[in-house]
């Protein structure tokens, strides 16, 4: 092993940690809506306020997304790897659950807080900024 190997490894890990930190800060406010996309197209939008189970049946397979206490998680999936069931509970604007075999992504959308249904979250300016950025990304991708 040479010195350059170690420099390379450490540089990549530091870049990873910095990106991780930046992404944690970006768009990390509590979300309001769950958006489920299949093949990049919106399958459905569901409020995080209401506890519910969403059955998703597509040509790729079956998934059940569960919303509980303002958090969404993948309860059931018949995909071969089952990784989506282990991605935990999500509730923030920068979090996603991905089921690759079923081409399915569960996203969290942060609504404009100035309408004021979620006062406990405080900093309105930050949420607003995040919102506008949040709008840009999906629109650019959904064909």
């Amino acid at each position, binding site marked *: *092993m*040479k*010195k*350059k*190997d170690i420099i*390379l*490894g450490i540089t*990549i*890990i530091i*870049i*990873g*940690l910095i*990106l*991780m930190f930046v*992404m944690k800060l970006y768009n990390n406010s509590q979300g309001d809506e769950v958006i489920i*996309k299949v*093949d*990049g197209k919106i399958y459905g939008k569901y409020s995080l306020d209401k506890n519910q189970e969403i059955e998703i049946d597509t040509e790729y397979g079956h998934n059940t997304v569960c919303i509980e206490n303002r958090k969404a998680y993948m309860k059931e999936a018949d995909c*071969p*790897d089952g*990784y989506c069931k*282990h*991605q935990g509970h999500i509730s923030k604007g*920068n*979090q*996603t659950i*991905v089921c*690759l*075999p079923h*081409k*399915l*992504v569960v*996203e969290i959308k942060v609504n404009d807080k100035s309408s004021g249904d979620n006062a406990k979250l405080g900093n309105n300016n930050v949420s607003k900024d995040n919102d506008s950025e949040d709008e840009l*990304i*999906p629109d*650019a*991708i*959904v*064909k």
Partner: protein
Amino acid sequence: MSKKVAYCAILIALAMIFSYVEAVIPVNFGIPGIKLGVANIVVVVGLYIIKAREVFVISVIRIILVGILFGNVMSILYSLAGGILSLIVMLLMKKMKGFSIVGVSIAGGVSHNVGQLAVAIAVVENLKLIAYIPVLLIAGAITGFIIGILSSKIVPVMKKEVEKVV
């Protein structure tokens, strides 16, 4: 020629067994979908004992066979993207001065993950997946380091054996 075919076949079989063993007994990194990629030992070691195009053939055939046996069309696509990208990056890294097999393997691990993420983003058509890049970079560097260390122990032994045969 027949010797070449024979040892390529042996290395493909070895890589397939590694893939299979890892599928049965996964090394858990605590993150869904992240694995060590033991089969890549064959590829990394191969870069140092046989010709680049033989490594390429071994890598592609192994991915397709493992995909047919244990995976599906999509898993072949992800593996090919990661496998081919990492092979190209490792060949370039090997040509650069100052890096040993460990550095080459780290670059391979990272580029493997980047290639797979690129395909994943294309498949689900959702750029939000870019959020996975930090964890994939770090995981790629760590798994690449482990594979590189293991490979650095294997290369001297294998080199002697291959020279005897070829």
